[in-house]
């Protein structure tokens, strides 16, 4: 067993960290306050090859594996602990990978180069008003009408709605194609949203992670070309689950990146801050918290990179079953947001009243990470159901 990254991965982490410190971190407060990632930041990320990083070179990507993609996620979240920039990056990395894997050649040629150039946004539209976790209950319908596909329904709590309508782009969208077949009657399509007749959107005010919007998409008789069907008809549930398995380790990596940065800054702070004539760090109570938080963070980090490694092994060497991948990914996604939230909360408290200010820059991390405790990219209880199902057997699956 070897826990080390390759020389290339280490060098990439160093390069991404330098890039993020220069090109993202200076804008972190602005991103949170203005609720938008400056276009220049996105352009720089595209030039540096971060957008759509898992997409193959022929479409302008870097063809990165998931360990490499996770390294970049971690580093981006360190630079912008509100998580907004990391989320923009990771949805494209996760779902861009899926489009490349199952999308038609024509669709890939149309969609992916603009994503990797940073010209358009690519996201995932799965959740509906009736629920996000219960994928089988999705009611947005897609029908075949001649050479076209027609979509009707609505999606909500979708990341990047404002960005997709501003810059262009669209969503890997989960739709029902055979209602009688429940989850086996789902398909995936690519749904563009900018200037598309029948599409209306609205954006919600959020608690945090404001640099990337969250909103709703109302879809009324929207016609899309048949080559926007992703993969086979009625196989959408399986593709969507695979896509979530690709995106979730990156979500978890973003959480640990934000928490790492917070913990590092907290450690520096308690070494300097004098209380009763001694640095805070001299108090055993503080040392115990440092040790506990470090240990929790390392545990989460190991699960994240194990999940990413298993994904890479599955795609490159056909190792590991989907059941094993499901369990590893769900474990990483289960632990990372909670650990990150707890760490950032502790560090915020170490800073006393200053920690409660915007100036300290910690509260935006707390608000951002909370989105993944709420359930973005898969609710925590769903992660538990997945792990439980894989451990107990399918016959105990309540869904």
């Amino acid at each position, binding site marked *: 067993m070897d826990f080390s990254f390759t*020389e*290339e991965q*280490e*060098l*990439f982490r*160093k*390069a991404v960290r*330098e*890039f993020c410190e*220069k090109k993202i971190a200076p804008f972190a407060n602005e991103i949170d306050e203005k609720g938008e990632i400056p276009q220049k930041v996105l352009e720089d990320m595209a030039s*540096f*090859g971060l957008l759509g*990083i898992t997409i193959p*070179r022929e479409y302008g990507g*870097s063809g*990165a594996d998931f360990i*490499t993609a996770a390294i970049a996620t971690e580093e981006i979240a360190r630079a912008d602990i509100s998580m907004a920039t990391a989320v923009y990056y990771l949805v494209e990395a996760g779902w861009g990978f899926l489009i490349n894997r199952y999308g038609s050649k024509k669709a890939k040629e149309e969609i992916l180069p603009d994503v990797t150039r940073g010209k358009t946004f690519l996201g995932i539209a799965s959740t509906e008003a009736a629920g996000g976790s219960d994928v089988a209950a999705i009611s947005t319908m897609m029908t075949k009408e001649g050479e076209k596909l027609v979509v009707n329904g609505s999606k909500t709590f979708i990341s990047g709605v404002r960005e997709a309508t501003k810059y262009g782009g669209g969503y890997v969208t989960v739709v029902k194609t055979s209602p009688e077949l429940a989850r086996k009657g789902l398909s995936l399509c690519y749904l563009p949203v900018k200037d598309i007749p029948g599409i209306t959107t609205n954006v919600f005010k959020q608690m945090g992670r404001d640099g990337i919007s969250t909103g709703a998409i109302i879809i009324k008789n929207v016609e899309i070309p048949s080559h926007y069907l992703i993969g086979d008809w009625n196989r959408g549930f399986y593709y969507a689950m695979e896509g979530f398995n690709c995106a979730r380790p990156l979500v978890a990596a973003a959480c640990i990146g934000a928490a790492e940065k917070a913990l590092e800054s907290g450690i520096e702070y308690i070494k300097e801050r004098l209380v009763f004539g001694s640095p805070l760090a001299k108090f055993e109570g503080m040392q115990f918290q440092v040790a506990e938080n470090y240990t929790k963070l390392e545990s989460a980090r190991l699960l994240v990179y194990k999940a990413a490694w298993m994904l890479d092994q599955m795609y490159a060497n056909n190792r590991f079953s989907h059941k094993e991948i499901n369990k590893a990914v769900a474990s990483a996604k289960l632990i990372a947001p909670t650990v990150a939230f707890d760490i950032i909360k502790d560090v915020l408290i170490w800073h006393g009243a200053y920690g409660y200010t915007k100036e300290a820059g910690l509260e935006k991390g707390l608000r951002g990470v909370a989105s993944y405790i709420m359930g973005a990219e898969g609710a925590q209880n769903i992660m538990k159901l997945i792990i439980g199902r894989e451990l107990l057997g399918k016959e105990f699956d309540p869904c």
Partner: protein
Amino acid sequence: MVDIIVCIKQIFDLGQIKVDATSKRPITEGVARKISDFDKNALEETLRIKEKHGGTVLALIGGTKEAAKEALAMGADEAVIYSADTDSLGTATILAEIIQKMKYDLILCGEASVDEFSFQTGPRLAQALGIPVLTYARKMEIKDNEVIVERNLETRYEVAKARLPALVTVTKEINEPRIPTLLQILGASKKKLTEISPAKPESGVETLSITAIEMKRKEVILKDIKELARVVISEKS
């Protein structure tokens, strides 16, 4: 077409070095290494010259494979690494011995390494090779087989030129070094990397110890803003 050799030193990342509270000595254990800042500027400048004029860039690195991989990822065509546990005279002697066997039009160095700041290696190397040297370049261009540089001499800028082959040392202000992308990093592993072990020359200077200077605040308590103003004015004058 300009064939360029860029001399690079790998140093400890000084930002990560902590000082032992008792001995005041730097603790280097576990500290990451990096390409010395001005040497990275020199590398960046060679890449810009190559992009404009064509030619090749060979990175000659006192350090490890890690630094070589970074230089190759940034765009150097080839790297040679050697061990460089010596002073400026020793380093210049080693470099001259290696470079004498090579074909080149131009040699670039950082104005100094940010760990030792001797400012000597570049000029000593030029001396050993018998070629002109232009130090402290903040701008440079290649024209008609000559290198023209604008030198930062702190109180003034001086424009000077030299025929090629020549050696130029550059300042930090000359450029902002590029950061290699993932594809460039992956591509670097396909480039030529040679490791050599030159004999260690006699050192002219031997460093006996390095200790941190103790920085203490004056801890002067002033009564009001007027007193503060008086102190500032008196310290300024």
